[in-house]
């Protein structure tokens, strides 16, 4: 399954099929987590460097128990900046609204759950890049609207005359 | 530049109100067309 973020709704919808296309029973989180052997999850990121402040964190297998994703500014997780409840038995979680900076993620180490630590850098596009594209768009849009209105009014006058 | 609460709630409320008016406008127009036999 290709992993595309951004506007790729259709691929995302396809993901949705695979994620949801299992019997209801499969979505029941196991309650017997404590008795199970430790599961080591492999975390991966959709990108190492997010330019938009959103990204997808994926695990390599369906969660066996209720899990929490932890976020920290340092690799040793000395201070936990935020925690996100993992939703259902999905193998992905999309996080959004991050400012510039380095972020580390891992699954909260509890009985039966451990994972690797992944690192992500959020680096938004520079203001000049954003504004230059914005003003190019604005210019082109103005040209279009002015052309349309001028031509429409001129044609109307000709038709009336 | 963070959008403030006032601006945010105004935006949402105004849009919600406008959207809620839409069915009334459409039904009103339909009734007008229907009564004057201008539907089709």
């Amino acid at each position, binding site marked *: *399954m*290709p992993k595309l973020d*951004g*506007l*790729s*709704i*259709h*691929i*995302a*919808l*396809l*993901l*949705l*099929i695979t994620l*949801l*296309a299992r*019997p*209801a029973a499969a*979505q*029941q989180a196991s309650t017997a987590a404590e008795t199970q052997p430790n599961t080591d999850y492999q975390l991966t990121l959709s990108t190492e460097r997010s*330019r938009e402040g959103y990204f*997808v964190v994926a695990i390599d297998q369906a969660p066996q128990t209720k899990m929490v*994703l932890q976020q920290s500014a340092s690799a040793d997780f000395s201070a936990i900046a*935020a925690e*996100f*409840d993992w*939703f*259902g038995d*999905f*193998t992905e*979680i*999309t*996080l*959004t*609204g991050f400012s510039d900076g380095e972020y580390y993620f891992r699954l909260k180490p509890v009985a039966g759950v451990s994972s690797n630590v992944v690192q992500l850098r959020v680096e*938004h*596009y520079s*203001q000049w890049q954003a504004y230059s*594209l*914005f003003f190019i*768009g604005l210019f*082109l*849009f103005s*040209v*279009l*609207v002015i052309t*349309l209105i001028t*031509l*429409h009014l001129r044609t109307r006058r000709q038709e009336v005359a | 530049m963070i*959008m403030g609460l006032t601006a945010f709630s105004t935006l*949402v409320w105004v*849009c*919600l109100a406008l*959207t*809620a008016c839409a069915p009334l406008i*459409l039904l009103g*127009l*339909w009734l007008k*067309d229907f009564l004057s036999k201008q539907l*089709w």
Partner: protein
Amino acid sequence: MNEVSGFALSSSLGLTLVVLFGIVWIAFGWYLGRANKTHEDFALAGRNVGFALAAATAMATWVTSNTTLVAPQLTYQFGVWGMVGYSFAALGLILFAPLAARIKRLMPNGYTSGDFIRLRYGRAAWWVFIIISVVYAFGWLVSLGMAGGILLEALSGLDYHIGMSAILLICVGYTLFGGLRAVIATDFIQALIIIVGVVLIAWFLIDTVSLESIHQEVKSNHPQLLDLLFPAAIMFLFNNIFFGLGEIFHSNVWWSRALAFKGKVAFKAYLLGGLLWLPIPIVTGFIALAAPQLGIFPPSADMVGPMVAAEVLGKIGAVVVFIVVFSALASSLDSLLAATSDLVTRDIYHKYLKPQASDQHLLRFNRYSILGLGIVTWLFCLPQIATLGALLNFAGAFVASTIFPVVLGLYQRKLTGTYAAAAMALGTLSGLVGYFTIGFYVAALLSCIVSAALCGFGLLTSQARFDWQQLNEKEEPTS
């Protein structure tokens, strides 16, 4: 969905809703189709659609799965600018209003957007245009069919193939019986359902989690989403607008409506349709901002809307989401089926393969092509190919190249077919190059810039003066 205990609806309830929808729509289509005597009746609803139905169909068709699924997605990703930027797609409808009036006046006997390109710019431009149209129409058709299957599966666990086949069968069914008349009449009802459903969901959400708490949570933990200077969101803004403009300006979905509307209705209808549509993406979008507050972090961003709705409203929410999204899908799918089959019947069959075909023959062929399109779409949807679904993703590069050739073609005598063809072809190519080398947020923009530059150059160097009368093609008397 919150309790990870399976699906929001039971399979039998999902299936019942689908069957109920199917019976009602198809019966309605059959009822409306009884009056269709000629091909013109079938394809263009007798060219006499009144203001109310016209405005509703313009609005409803533009409310696709995009408005109900992508508006929340973009809000989740780009914050406030995501939903505001998405609502600017209404500009497509609003700016099409003068064009629609002009189209109706120039081509009182026209059938399709392909007709216009062929008569105005000749064969070469027509070929480029048809390729763009077909790529776009099929990408959209297939994605709508797939979305239907996915929706049903997501909400009720019903097999993907059942949902996908059901929505195609229903839409093909009533379009086949009723033609454009059925499409427009069902659009009116679907528009009402969509708006009421969306307002209900938003209202309950505000009632449950106040706007204050949503704002507070986002401000402290995801401040970027409220940032009005969010770079990626600013970059994406105009690209999205040009994508929307390109979709509407070129597609026969909108042209055939302009031609079907009564007399002077076209201008008013598109204007009102656009204004009614404008606030909807904000209403569907802002609910995504409640996700962090509710502790919902979706697996993929496009699921955030339905997930929040189901969380807040529970089972009723799931039923409302189902009905709203199903209506949104159907109102676009039927329009696309009708408009694309018109394009096939009129542009390819009648004007290219069988110029001598009689009116009854065309009416029959139009029905066959709806059926054919339905079957081909079904076949494409069957294996759920990702690459085809991704078609729409870079469709912006294709459609944005048609904006200037269409606008100038309608108002300017000087632009020639060679330049129009080059503008569309090179615009599309540069848009695609931009998409793959720079990013999705430049595809439509780049395509439109190149196309506009070529058109401008064409205007400056041209000595041609197109005779508008050539657009008013008289129909050959048919037996």
